[in-house]
């Protein structure tokens, strides 16, 4: 490989050297290099870009050296910070595998994320719809241009935040830096770049679909949680009825009003047996929900990555 003669050249070579790495890592590495190179060129106003780049190999490092450093550090950090795999995952018993989900911290964070998405979905959706319509409205005014730039800038920061959140929850590697507007250029050139950039549109699309997705996730999580809580609490309720409230004239029936598929009351002949059955059913529903949450949010993180991260930067 020839020694790079310009910043773009260097970044191109670095991209080639990082080929096959995680796109989020590539984006970080390229931005780090670009920050350094631009600052270095700016710090030597007397020298040409090519002259400065000649020095770079001995200070910053050649592209393949830098790529190797990123690969090594990334592998080490990943190994050190990875959430330990749930011990049950290794065991072969299907029953232990099924209930092992409770030992995996990610299933709890995934469930939390599902509940959170309703709120974030509403905020994102409102932000995009308001931003787009105001941009369209302002387009004929002089403030239309800075408004649109600010709107897209904020959308990119939101995308970064969403990525960091998802990485925290699922371990899916996401970028550490927001997409940046590139070297200083006129406002019109910047707007042109933004409009041409596919990532701008996929980011906005992601923020929009977060509302319907958030509604679905939230509904699934809340329904699963409340139904299983009601079922699991049934023996307790029965006990309370028997022990505490027995002097009130309660019927022995357990009533679950409005849950489809469940009779409105359980015959009083075997209330204990029935409540234990419900308890087991509740436990199964809750465990299934935890599995579902983990899988769903993992899938969601892949979707987010495909829409928010620049492929090959």
């Amino acid at each position: 490989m020839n020694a790079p003669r310009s910043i773009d050249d260097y970044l191109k070579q670095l991209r080639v050297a990082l080929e096959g790495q995680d796109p989020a890592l590539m984006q970080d590495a390229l931005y780090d290099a670009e920050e350094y190179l631009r600052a270095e060129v700016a710090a030597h106003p007397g020298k040409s870009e090519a002259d400065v780049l000649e020095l770079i190999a001995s200070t910053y490092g050649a592209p393949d050296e830098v790529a190797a450093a990123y690969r090594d550090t990334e592998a080490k950090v990943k190994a050190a910070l990875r959430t330990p795999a749930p011990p049950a995952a290794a065991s072969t018993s299907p029953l232990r595998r099924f209930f092992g989900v409770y030992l995996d911290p990610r299933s709890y964070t995934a469930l939390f994320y599902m509940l959170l998405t309703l709120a974030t979905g509403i905020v994102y959706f409102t932000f995009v719809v308001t931003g787009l319509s105001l941009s369209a409205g302002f387009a004929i005014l002089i403030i239309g241009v800075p408004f649109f730039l600010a709107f897209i800038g904020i959308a990119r920061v939101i995308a970064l935040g969403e990525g960091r959140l998802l990485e925290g929850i699922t371990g899916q590697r996401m970028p550490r830096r927001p997409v940046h507007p590139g070297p200083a250029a006129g406002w019109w050139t910047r707007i042109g770049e933004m409009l041409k950039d596919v990532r701008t549109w996929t980011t906005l699309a992601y923020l929009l679909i977060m509302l319907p997705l958030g509604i679905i996730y939230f509904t699934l999580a809340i329904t699963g949680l409340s139904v299983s809580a009601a079922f699991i609490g049934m023996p307790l309720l029965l006990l309370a009825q028997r022990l505490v409230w027995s002097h009130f004239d309660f019927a022995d029936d357990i009533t679950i009003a409005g849950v489809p598929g469940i009779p409105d009351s359980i015959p009083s002949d075997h209330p204990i047996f029935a409540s234990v059955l419900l308890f087991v059913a509740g436990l199964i529903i809750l465990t299934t929900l935890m599995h579902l949450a983990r899988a769903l949010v993992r899938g969601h993180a892949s979707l987010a990555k495909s829409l928010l991260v620049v492929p090959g930067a």
Partner: protein
Amino acid sequence: MDDSLARKFQKDLNSGLVALVLLGVLDSSSEDLYGYEIAKRLQRANQGEALFKEGTIYPVLRALAAQGLLTSRVVPSYSGPPRRYYRITDEGRSMLRQWSDIWRQTRGFVDRFIEGTDA
């Protein structure tokens, strides 16, 4: 051959030392620093041949931040990508003290042998 072995030795040494040096730089700085500034401080400190390439400090900074030893914030920049400014945390300071002790012990221990063979 000679040269590549020397380089490999340097690289093995660096894997832990870069982190220690970075913590030291950020601890002694009164303000938050971003990658390029840190790189320049290192460059000023070491006259002549650099012990490690500045391109290798960015992933290490990120690793330290992921371990909670540094905090960071992103600041937009007109001249290029947004900059990530780093600051050492209390946890980072106590880690720096521990690591410095380990480094002093190691250095003393190694020196005893190297200087022993010299004498």
